[in-house]
């Protein structure tokens, strides 16, 4: 097989496309975790986003409504998590797991009548430039608007967390809810907002799968990407820019194994698929050993219940 330059361009373009749902979901979860909330429901919120986006597309025949609707449904489903963990003070881990289990079940129930319906073609931008410029064409052009948004998101998130006052509030709430509360910040409200934002991004990530990446509805179609997104946040040590790099690595592994299967490469594909998970564990060990490193970006109160004495 020839590894000419235009093939590599197309390969990079497809790696970018496969990393989009990871970037979106992980960037959303990153904000949630930075506020001190560990939401293990990413997979559940993504799959709900996927079915509601696809269902709305079929019903309304309008892709804009479908995209916005998927984000809205992500918000609604994350509201369950927010209400339970913030207002009823339930355990984050258990509630998040329940959300994932519930979401997978509910999506299959809602999607029963949408199996086998063909999707609609999603408009791509700059498609003429894609063909005319070798190598850079397929990398930079001919993608959906969601992809461009996803690649801008980590930078926006980074700016938000580091340069804006609201970002500082989110970090304060995540690092020390008690002091933030004493400063007059309403910790519960901030956390609610971060949870709902995470829900919206996970919903969008799901809709990207069912509307753009593989335009159809299949039961359980997120196929563990939510868990990879969760791993990604840790892998990136809660830094938005590293989320982008990690998503490209993890997305690259997915694409690479498809091509390796095609050319009959000798490394078993399962070992490649296991790499993101193993790399995350290794990163966890490395950052956790050095307490200074983990303190740098890790939200100190991650997963702990905050309760304000009245």
């Amino acid at each position, binding site marked *: 097989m020839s590894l000419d330059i235009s093939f590599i361009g197309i390969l990079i373009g497809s790696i970018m496309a496969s990393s989009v749902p990871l970037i979106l979901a992980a960037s959303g979860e990153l904000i949630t975790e930075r506020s001190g909330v560990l939401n293990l429901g990413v997979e559940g919120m993504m799959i709900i986003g996927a079915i509601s986006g696809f269902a709305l597309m079929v019903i309304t025949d309008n892709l804009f409504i479908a995209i916005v609707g998927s984000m809205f449904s992500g918000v609604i489903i994350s509201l369950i998590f927010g209400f339970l963990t913030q207002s009823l003070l*339930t*355990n984050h881990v258990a509630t998040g*797991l*329940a*959300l994932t289990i519930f979401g997978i*079940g509910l999506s299959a*129930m809602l999607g029963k009548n949408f199996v086998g319906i063909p999707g609609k073609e999603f408009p791509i931008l700059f498609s003429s430039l894609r063909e005319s410029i070798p190598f850079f064409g397929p990398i930079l052009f001919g993608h959906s608007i969601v992809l461009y948004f996803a690649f801008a998101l980590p930078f926006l998130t980074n700016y938000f967390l580091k340069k804006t006052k609201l970002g500082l509030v989110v970090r304060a709430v995540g690092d020390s809810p008690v002091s933030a509360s004493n400063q007059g910040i309403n910790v519960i409200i901030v956390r609610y907002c971060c949870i709902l934002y995470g829900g919206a991004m996970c919903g969008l990530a799901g809709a990207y799968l069912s509307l753009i990446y593989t335009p159809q509805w299949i039961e359980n179609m997120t196929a*563990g990407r939510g868990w990879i997104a969760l791993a990604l946040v840790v892998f990136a040590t809660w830094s938005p820019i590293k989320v982008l790099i990690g998503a490209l690595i993890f997305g690259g592994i997915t694409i690479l194994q498809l091509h390796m299967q095609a050319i009959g490469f000798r490394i078993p594909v399962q070992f490649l698929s296991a790499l993101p998970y193993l790399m995350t564990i290794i990163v966890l060990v490395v950052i956790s050993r050095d307490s200074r490193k983990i303190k740098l970006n890790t939200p100190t109160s991650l997963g702990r219940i905050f309760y304000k004495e009245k």
Partner: protein
Amino acid sequence: MALYFFTPFIAIILTILGGGIIFYILGFNPIEALKFYFITPISNLYGLSELLLKATPLCLIAIGLSFCFKSNNWNIGAEGQLTFGAIVGGGVALLFYNQEGFYILPLVILAGAIGGMIFALIPAILKTYFNTNEILVSLMLVYVSKLLLDYLVVGPWSNPEGFNFPETRQFSDSSRMPLLFESLRIHAGIFLALAAVMLSWFILYKTYLGFQIKVSGLSLKTAKYAGFKGKTMILVVFMISGACAGLAGVGEITGPIGQLHRMISPDYGFTAIIVAFLGRLNPFGIIFASLVVALTYLGAETAQIFLQIPKYTGQVFQGMILFFLLASDYLLFFKVKILNLKKNELRH
């Protein structure tokens, strides 16, 4: 205290009501749909046997998890420990695929328990010596173990006469759990689960180790002050938990399945977390909870046949049970607050 064991029932009732509403919205007669879900599956002997068959692994895993959860160790990778236990146990069973002998099954079971134990030791050792978060490590390992199983059944362990199906050879009869009744699938693995219940009750409520586990769960500082060896305890609870999950895995492959393939568990390891909570981390509560949650699996299968709704709906019920259970805990919390207030008022 009574309310503590009563709220799970409230959660179950609310879940059934919630399920009825969802069925109604989807255009089914809610009463009829719920009947297909919760009554039809267990209205005959075969159904009851299937209920026990599904409750067995759930009960075993949840018993193991109760040790971890009681001591504030968040092992949520039981699914991985189940899978790895099944791989190790299945490997031993495949070694003896053409042999018979009374010693084979005990060896297979032991190998499964050890496999699960070793796999659970990974997050435990990383937690104790490298300070890593056990939630994330145990979760990541679930996928690693599933991919390893996938590699083995399509690659080196696949059945040479199996026309490239992703499965191993059938185990020999000596590696299979004895059936309790002819023509029913319920097998001797249920005694493993019952033994685990008894043993865990004894350890948790009658031994020093159990006391240490409970104290560490209530207050880590107290445990440290009392001089308990925290690190050893983390390793021990993870080993118990992993061994139980490994046993559950080996029970599935030597019981109803009889070989290794990709789908050895419909996420029993994750669902068992719900079972552990619903059973209030109490050995006998867990027996009850495992039966309830097993019924959601069975009900989903029945509803798929009679109402043509996807069997994933079982997960809607499982998720709802946990939601309502966690929410009803707020009542307990609230009640405690009220009582405290009253006490304070009395003092003043």
